[in-house]
């Protein structure tokens, strides 16, 4: 009788741990979905931005072409999560260089259309960074779940492995060097 109770208790705990880990795993997927939504929003803004900048800044053709290409690749689909992250970093970099070169075109900088775009981009950027932080929190929770007892006993059997948290791209972490902006 006692043996039966103990076995039942162990089974119950195992089920709870299993469910807990699955829930954590789904939360991570869900959080990545959150980032995806925001990235998509940013892709939608790019054609508009390119069109606006083109009107005023014909010299920046190369930069605009590059960002159009990156966008095409990003919405092309069939990308792994890591590839998405990598592309996203490249797009962030390209957008930053556009914002810097805009400084040379006072008319563009003052145009209503551009100001609106800049505001929308700012908004999307802060949404993306919030989504990234939500993802990191979900991943940390998941990693804690599979590496601490008793989750670690189950995680091996379930084939769950540690996930990587988002890291801020090297370029974003550096302070802006004003001197570099005026080179070239």
């Amino acid at each position, binding site marked *: 009788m006692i043996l039966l109770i103990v076995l039942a208790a162990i089974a119950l705990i195992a089920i709870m741990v299993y469910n807990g880990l699955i829930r954590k795993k789904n939360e991570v997927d869900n*959080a990545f979905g*959150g980032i995806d939504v925001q990235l998509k929003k940013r892709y939608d803004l790019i054609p508009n931005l390119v069109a606006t900048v083109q009107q005023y800044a014909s010299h920046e053709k190369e930069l605009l072409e590059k960002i159009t290409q990156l966008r095409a690749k990003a919405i092309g689909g069939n990308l792994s999560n890591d590839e998405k992250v990598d592309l996203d970093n490249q797009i962030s970099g390209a957008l930053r260089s556009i914002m810097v070169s805009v400084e040379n075109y006072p008319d563009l900088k003052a145009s209503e259309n551009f100001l609106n775009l800049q*505001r929308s981009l*700012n*908004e999307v950027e*802060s*949404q993306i*960074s*919030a*989504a990234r*932080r*939500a993802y*990191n*929190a*979900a991943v940390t*929770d998941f990693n804690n779940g599979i590496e601490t007892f008793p989750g670690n006993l189950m995680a091996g059997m379930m084939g769950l492995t540690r996930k990587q948290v988002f890291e801020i791209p090297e370029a974003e972490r550096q302070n802006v060097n004003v001197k570099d902006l005026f080179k070239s």
Partner: protein
Amino acid sequence: MSDIQRIYHENIEPKLESLNVRRKALQNHYFIAILGIVGTILLIVILANSGVGILLLPVIGLVVFVVIRFIKISRLSKEYRADFKANVVAEIVKAVNPSWTYEPDNMIGQEVYWQSDLFRTKYDRYKGDDLVKGVIEKTDFECSELHTEYKEVTYDSKGRRRERWVTIFRGLFFHADFNKEFMGRTYVSPDVAEKMFGKFGQKFQKFTGPAPLVKLENVEFEKEFVVHATDQIEARYILTPTIMEAILRIKQQYNTQVHFSFVGSRVYCALSINRNLFEPKIFGQVVNLSEIENMYSLFKVNEVIIHELNLNTRIWTKE
């Protein structure tokens, strides 16, 4: 000499003299009223011992006298308080920012209190005063003293009914435009459970609270506050690393329990302060410099929150 010291000497001190006259008059009335009560009790005791009926008349006379005194005291207190608010508190508000309006007898509306969703206990009594309204650059705000309570009725072993008023919130209540339309609700509350019960308390917070728990990266912030939100991403969108630091600074500066909520397009903030604010004293000096400075710093909270949360940097729009 700081701003508020100069204002104290130039604008407030000259008015204190007339206030002091009122205060002394009030004090005298109190003294006489208390004497009347003592006299009544003495007479009743004498009456009970001697059984002389003739003394009943003076007792009734004395009771009437005391009642009249107290009616007078209540009227004088109101005048004294109004005088104090108009000449001292209004001056302090003006010193913080001359464009703000100050209404001594008005308070934050009950609908705003409910919208904030900071305190979800149903109240039976809603009191408040000292409403300050204004606009700092582009951000409009409102702030007042509030006190909400509910009535607790208990029965003891003998079945006797006992009533007790329990405070839900007492202190300064503030709300301002955040210039962003929120889809969900985000709550920042003092972390009581985790402080008392540690890790176990955090587990507890998962099941309680108005919305799912949000764990943030700032360790110091997590130690002081617990965050609940209906939308995990939006919570982080609002509580950026900078905002978390700002909320911590607000808490350190006022050194009291601080609640925040972000609902609709507004930020709500409640600072718990367990005493009646911006009131004159009847016994002792009307007001002294340190009390004035204290009031000044409390009114300043409007500015502090708006600046710390950077509500005037309008890089976001509501669309």
